[in-house]
């Protein structure tokens, strides 16, 4: 286990200067997520158009570097993507943190791949996996109109 792998430059950067941390204009879906044991909170907003494309996505919230960076990276990567593609990315991302499998998604650019891979160090820190996945689960709830607050204790 290596701290440097966990706290890569790219993560520290997203953690300190999160992208899309606001209510995005004209969002038509949103959902909240909690990690009750730690107190992490996230609120994801998105604008999904009729073609089920994520026109815009943003978040607000409080949490550790990992959870903020993960939310920030998520918004960057998912923005503009088709919902089904986004869902696929999410699945791959969660598997990466669970079993260490590489998320090889054709639809991601090299740059996007590097960014998402920067979170792969989290899998060595089991207690932090929930921090990294909270925003992603919350995105899914938002997109699917699931009114239940995401709760990582479930």
């Amino acid at each position, binding site marked *: 286990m290596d701290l440097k792998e966990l706290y890569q430059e790219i993560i520290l950067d997203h953690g300190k200067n999160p992208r899309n941390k606001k209510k995005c204009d004209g969002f038509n879906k949103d959902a909240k997520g*909690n990690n*009750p044991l730690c107190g992490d909170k996230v609120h994801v907003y998105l604008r999904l158009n009729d073609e089920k494309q994520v026109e815009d996505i943003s978040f607000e919230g409080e949490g550790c570097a990992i959870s903020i960076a993960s939310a920030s990276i998520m918004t960057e990567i998912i923005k503009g993507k088709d919902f089904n593609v986004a869902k696929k990315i999410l699945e791959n991302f969660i598997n990466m943190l669970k079993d260490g499998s590489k998320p090889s998604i054709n639809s991601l650019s090299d740059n996007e791949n590097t960014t998402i891979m920067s979170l792969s160090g989290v899998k060595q820190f*089991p*207690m*932090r996996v929930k921090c990294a996945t909270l925003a992603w689960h919350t995105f899914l709830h938002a997109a699917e109109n699931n009114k239940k*607050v995401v*709760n990582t204790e479930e």
Partner: protein
Amino acid sequence: MDIKEIKSKFPIFSNKVKGKKLVYLDSANSSQKPKVVIDRISNFYSKEFSNVGRSMHSLAVTATNRFEETRDLIKNFINAKFREEIIFTKNATEGINLVATTYGEKFIKDKDEIIITELEHHANYVPWHFLRKRKGAVIKFAECDKQGEVSIDSIKKLITNRTKLIAVTHVSNVTGTIMPLSKIIDLAKTKKIPVLIDGCQGAPHIKLDMQKLDCDFYVMSCHKMYGPTGVGILYAKKKWLDELPPYQGGGGMIDEVKKDNISFPESPTKFEAGTLQTAEIVGFAESIRFIENIGIKNITQHEKEITEYGLEKLKKNNSVSIIGDPKERGAIISFTIKGIHPHDIATILDDDGVAIRAGHHCCQILHEKIGIPASARASLGIYNSKEDIDILNESINKCNKVFNN
């Protein structure tokens, strides 16, 4: 199966009781613990201990994983559908109280009826009595017959459209009666009545399959399953756990806490308040492994053999009356001896190293029904052999000698 070898895995049997070999026939009360379980607890405290689910340091991560692993093992052991259906309680008693309190709060109104049986342990009566006091519920007792059986009809005829729950034991801890659970559950389903099973005397002895059995609630006591004291299990169908309010309140079982309101997470978290029995639950994983290594069906088979041998032997002993004669019997034989009170039997047997229980075994209703204040009970575990029965029988003869019978 080599019972000698299995027995050698239980450290207690290498001790003498009053200079005699221990003949432990009180497993229905609490079973002895194999070395793997005892050692696991020591080891956990010595090498891995930390509070579970709350801190983020390495010890806490390991402890949390070990702890949650037990939940998975139990889920598989009883073939539950979801791991969230396994709630850790203090003992089986707490499991029933949890259901009585939360189900009662939400679903029981004045004059609603709960059916239990005359065979029930106080643990499956007193919590319902509280609902009787608090909510005006009515408790109906399905009768047990001379053989110690509760027929499906005796339950059927109590059902009305006010029946809100049927709560029955899996195996009587006095007569050993194995209840016709499938029939009861089938009947209840046709009337949409939920069923709670007190599985204290079932789980240690009989293969369980929650999905097949399809009951709504099933409670167990780990200390009767070669496990540590201080842990019980409540199995409940997810749909109930989703609907029922929380039971105890405190750390770990909350979602958001505000000054004017509190929200709660889902099961199992919702039902597990405060610091749980971390080491005991981690240790219980070894009990499940121990049972599975032997094979629960082998346990059933072995205990059946010894029980039958015991019945045969004691029936031949003229001074002994065996309580009940159920068609299907678990590993329990309760009896009386003419002219000798069960407490005196227990004391005299103890002098020979034979540990049985005497009293009403938390079944006053049943004893009143039978018309005796107390009985003596020999109950078996995987470590018992025919020799134990022989010693029991000898010792019963000694009772008669001491009392000049």
